[in-house]
């Protein structure tokens, strides 16, 4: 997890841990043998389902048992349940995986099981509200992923999941809301590269659809970036974003302005390596322009 320091444990602590682990190992191997036997027997009962819950709580990285759990649901439990019950079972699994994600936020298998659950929510609750359960679940998911990103704003799996939810919500939230979200995350921490990346995606989409004027919008972005540069000149995220805004470097007035601004920063922070890179980038674009006679004396 980002920002969590590794701890050195004493011999006594390590010995106590070893004793505890031996007891856990005994329990784990008993559960492992039980669930794999049930799987071998193609057992799709509630009892089989419960044994997958028990072992996955101990080891949520056992991908074969996530597969078995899904097979138990589709072959045993769902065919014997009405849509409301199916929705409840899937909601329970979403709660289970949320609890597991708190301990294991970067386990691919947990995130993909959540997606599977969401994709299997049945139509309902009524014929007039066929999307009712689905809409409720997608809205909850946005809340879940925000919690995950509050805990670790750089968890790329959570950001991927966020994009997955936004892409599936019906109706989708307006892109301006997502732009606001990225602003909030960036202002909380200028080195949140994930948020800068998301911002680049949202902006490119808005520019392409003509919902935002690219030139005016970029002006706002330069102001945001300048604020970030001066706050933390050694953060790479800011300079990478800045280089992207500079783009092909066709706007020579812009290049001159940015070179001047960054040079002022460099004068204040001569030891800042990133600032050296940051000023080199537009200068490089400017020289490229000079070679083709775009820049005057």
């Amino acid at each position, binding site marked *: 997890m980002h920002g969590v320091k590794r701890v050195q444990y004493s011999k006594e602590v390590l010995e106590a841990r070893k004793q505890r682990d031996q007891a856990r190992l005994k329990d784990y191997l008993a559960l492992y043998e039980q669930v794999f036997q049930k799987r071998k027997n193609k057992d799709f009962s509630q009892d089989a389902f419960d044994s997958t819950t028990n072992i996955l709580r101990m080891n949520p990285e056992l991908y074969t048992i996530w597969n078995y759990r899904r097979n138990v649901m589709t072959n045993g439990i769902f065919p014997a349940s009405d849509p409301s019950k199916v929705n409840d079972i899937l909601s329970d699994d979403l709660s289970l995986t949320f609890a597991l994600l708190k301990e294991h936020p970067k386990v691919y298998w947990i995130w993909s099981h959540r997606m599977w659950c969401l994709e299997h929510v049945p139509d309902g609750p009524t014929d007039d509200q066929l999307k009712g359960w689905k809409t409720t679940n997608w809205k909850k998911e946005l809340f879940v992923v925000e919690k995950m990103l509050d805990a670790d704003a750089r968890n790329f799996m959570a950001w991927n999941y966020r994009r997955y939810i936004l892409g599936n919500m019906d109706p989708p939230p307006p892109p301006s809301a997502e732009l606001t979200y990225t602003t909030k995350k960036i202002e909380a921490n200028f080195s949140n590269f994930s948020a800068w*990346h998301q911002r680049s995606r949202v902006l490119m989409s808005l520019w392409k659809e003509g919902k935002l004027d690219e030139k005016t919008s970029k002006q706002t972005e330069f102001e945001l970036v300048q604020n970030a540069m001066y706050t933390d000149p050694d953060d790479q995220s800011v300079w990478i974003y800045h280089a992207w805004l500079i783009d092909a470097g066709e706007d020579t007035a812009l290049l001159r302005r940015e070179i001047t601004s960054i040079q002022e920063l460099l004068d204040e922070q001569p030891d800042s390596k990133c600032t050296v890179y940051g000023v080199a980038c537009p200068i490089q674009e400017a020289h490229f322009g000079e070679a083709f006679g775009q820049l005057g004396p």
Partner: protein
Amino acid sequence: MSNTTSSMTLNIPLHVKYIQSLGENKDDLVYHMTSHLRMNAIYWGLNALCVMKQKDALDREEMIDFVMSCWDDEAGAFGAHPAHDAHILSTLSAIQVLTIQDAVDRVDVQRVVKFILSLHQPSGVFAGDPFGEIDTRFSYIAVQALALLGQLDKLNVDKTVSYILRCRNFDGGFGAVIGAESHSAQGTFLISSVLHRLIIHCI
């Protein structure tokens, strides 16, 4: 000066001993809790030994037997551990181990190729298994596996490459899926392996 010199020398025997010990600690909780990574771990350990020119530090026959014991006959590919489901991750590691051990003749190549190609999605990306998790790292795995088996001609190259190119981001890197932020794993795999290998193959 002598301290500096000794600290510049890789302590190969110590590293070999460490790798050997990893397969021996069978009463260790972590050993059992990582069974989902076993096939990968064997490849990583073997590869490290090869880099140190100590390939024989692990028994060849035992290793091949273990790899073959992970064959999932229902799926036609390899799981991470005996009785584990086939997955593209463990399938590549198995092929890599067998290639290094000069034992690829033990593989039912046609079935493995069928498994890998069955995971190729309409969008061009690969899934990891029939449950459908997609990721460009699986695209790398598919290309690498097919290349090692000499079956790259079975791949729809245009479809594979077009998806990868759509994963290119504002910073020049690549993400796991379209829209995902750049990750060094994807960058390493996709540029150095997939795209390069496919260019070579197409020439």
